[in-house]
């Protein structure tokens, strides 16, 4: 049906209705997708603070971007975030999902609790963790000092701050991935395990030989969603650290936000957004390719 639509001229009166039905979307698409895309392209070559007229500056925005240490810092920070967040997320989510997938009382209760941080606003989670992470009076450091450890400079140390944010993000989002893995686990055909048991395979062997390979599609989803999430990081550093210390938590979106709304550089901010978008698309495509073609072990 799909491929022959061109020859499939309106055979009946429902064609007109079809146009009416999609009209609102076409209008919406024109206004909020197509126009911004085109305008974004125009902005790439301009310097503009909105109030005074736009100035054509050729490729200067790109030239500046290549010489802008904060742009590279933001990418590096995002990569750092992803490198900590994704593996941590997968291990915890998969572990809990496996536990939840076994015979269990109160499964609904546990599932609901793990999912709770997902539904709550990122602002709430961030304010809460700000208290947990506080250096002198935070709950975490009080616990550590109570059992005889030193205080950890969660958000103060430039080398630690991103790790702390990644930990917090994992806590907030892991519920989604638990559910995704749970769905994935339930899709694994029982017979596979049964025949493996008959062959004398241990539980661990079954996990590595059957479960993990069967979960590959779920891994793809988890990695891709986390990557997109990592590049969208905004509220957490905005509230928690303002991008500091030493710009170690400056995220891509926070940097775009600052350039656009703190320094009024609309053209440069649009250029940053454009390049970040290209990077996201590139990374996601690459990830899909790598995970999907990885040989089964």
């Amino acid at each position, binding site marked *: 049906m799909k*491929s022959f*639509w*061109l020859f*499939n001229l309106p*055979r009946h009166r*429902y*064609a007109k*209705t*079809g146009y009416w*039905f*999609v009209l*609102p*979307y076409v209008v*919406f698409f024109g206004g*909020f*997708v197509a126009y*911004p*895309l085109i*305008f974004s392209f125009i*902005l790439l070559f301009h310097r503009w603070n*909105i109030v005074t007229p736009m100035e054509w500056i050729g490729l200067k925005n790109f030239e500046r971007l290549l010489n802008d240490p904060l742009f590279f810092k933001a990418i590096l920070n995002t990569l750092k975030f992803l490198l900590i967040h994704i593996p941590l997320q997968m291990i915890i989510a998969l572990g809990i999902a496996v*536990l*939840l997938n076994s015979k269990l009382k109160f499964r609904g209760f*546990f599932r609901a*609790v*793990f999912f*709770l941080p997902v*539904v*709550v*606003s*990122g*602002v*709430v989670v961030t*304010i*809460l*963790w*700000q*208290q*947990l992470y506080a250096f002198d*009076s935070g*709950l975490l450091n*009080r616990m550590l000092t109570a059992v005889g450890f030193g205080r950890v400079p969660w958000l103060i140390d430039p080398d630690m701050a991103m790790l702390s944010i990644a930990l917090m993000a994992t806590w907030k989002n892991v*519920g989604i991935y638990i*559910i*995704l893995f749970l769905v994935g686990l339930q899709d694994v055909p029982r017979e596979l395990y049964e025949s493996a048991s008959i062959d004398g395979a241990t539980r661990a062997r079954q996990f590595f030989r059957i479960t993990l390979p069967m979960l590959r599609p779920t891994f793809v*989803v988890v990695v891709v*969603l986390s990557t*997109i999430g990592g*590049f969208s990081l905004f509220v957490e550093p*905005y*509230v928690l650290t303002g991008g500091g210390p030493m710009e170690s938590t400056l995220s891509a*979106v926070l940097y*775009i*936000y600052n350039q656009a*709304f703190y320094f009024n550089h*609309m053209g440069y901010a*649009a250029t940053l*957004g454009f390049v*970040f*978008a290209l990077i996201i698309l590139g990374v996601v495509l690459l990830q899909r390719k790598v995970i999907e073609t990885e040989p089964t072990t």
Partner: protein
Amino acid sequence: MKAIAKYAALGLGAVVFAYPFLWMIASSLKPEAEIGGFGLWSPHFTLFNYEQVIERIPLGRAFLNSIIVSLSATVSVVVFGSMVGYALARLQFIGRGTLYAIVVFTMTLPFQITLIPQYILMVKLGITDTYLALVAPTLMTAFSIILFRQFFLYVPQALIDAARIDGCSELRILFRVIWPLSRPVVITVSLLTFMSSWNEVLWPLIVVRNRSLMTMPQLVTLFTIGGEAESLLGLQLAAATLLALPIIITYSFFQRYFIESMASAGIKG
């Protein structure tokens, strides 16, 4: 033995995920000097922090704003999303394949690229600091269209044909015949749209600077990072609790739907 270990692990996990919230609620009810203790109980529970927050920022108004914005986004996404989804799934017209390709393309488009021009569009239309600016970019989502289309593809053709023979208009067919059959997808789209709209912070921060139009998460964010909370922990926690409560209450009633929605969305996305 194994069972005990399993329950212990899950129990520990549950504490890690739930205790911070309980601590937040309890601490928001404590006097400033007692915040920071591990325990939940205090002999000096007080509503002082809440009184202060409500006195300092117009949270009631913000709550109303958030409800207005999230509900209009949700209604619009569900109504228009299902219409487009239906057209793409069941109606034939020239350009259908192209349009579907466009919808899919839109979904893969990172928002970072359209953020600034969308804001400029609001400025040019002169609608910054209005409800319209708050909802406009979320009135329709590619994601909802795809979910609806996917679901509608499996509605039996016979049902639609029967309704057409009865002389029903396509709108009537969609809302009277197909919708009742599509409760799961309608609930999924509604919940996800409502939740993401309710929790959105970046867009409101960009288009609204008039306090009486601010959404709840936006107002709480600015309250925390601006000077108004005077780095008083109790006030910040009280504001956070007030922001979390509506969603937590909704979640406790519709917990199953939330989880299932997220699962189905994640898999299709």
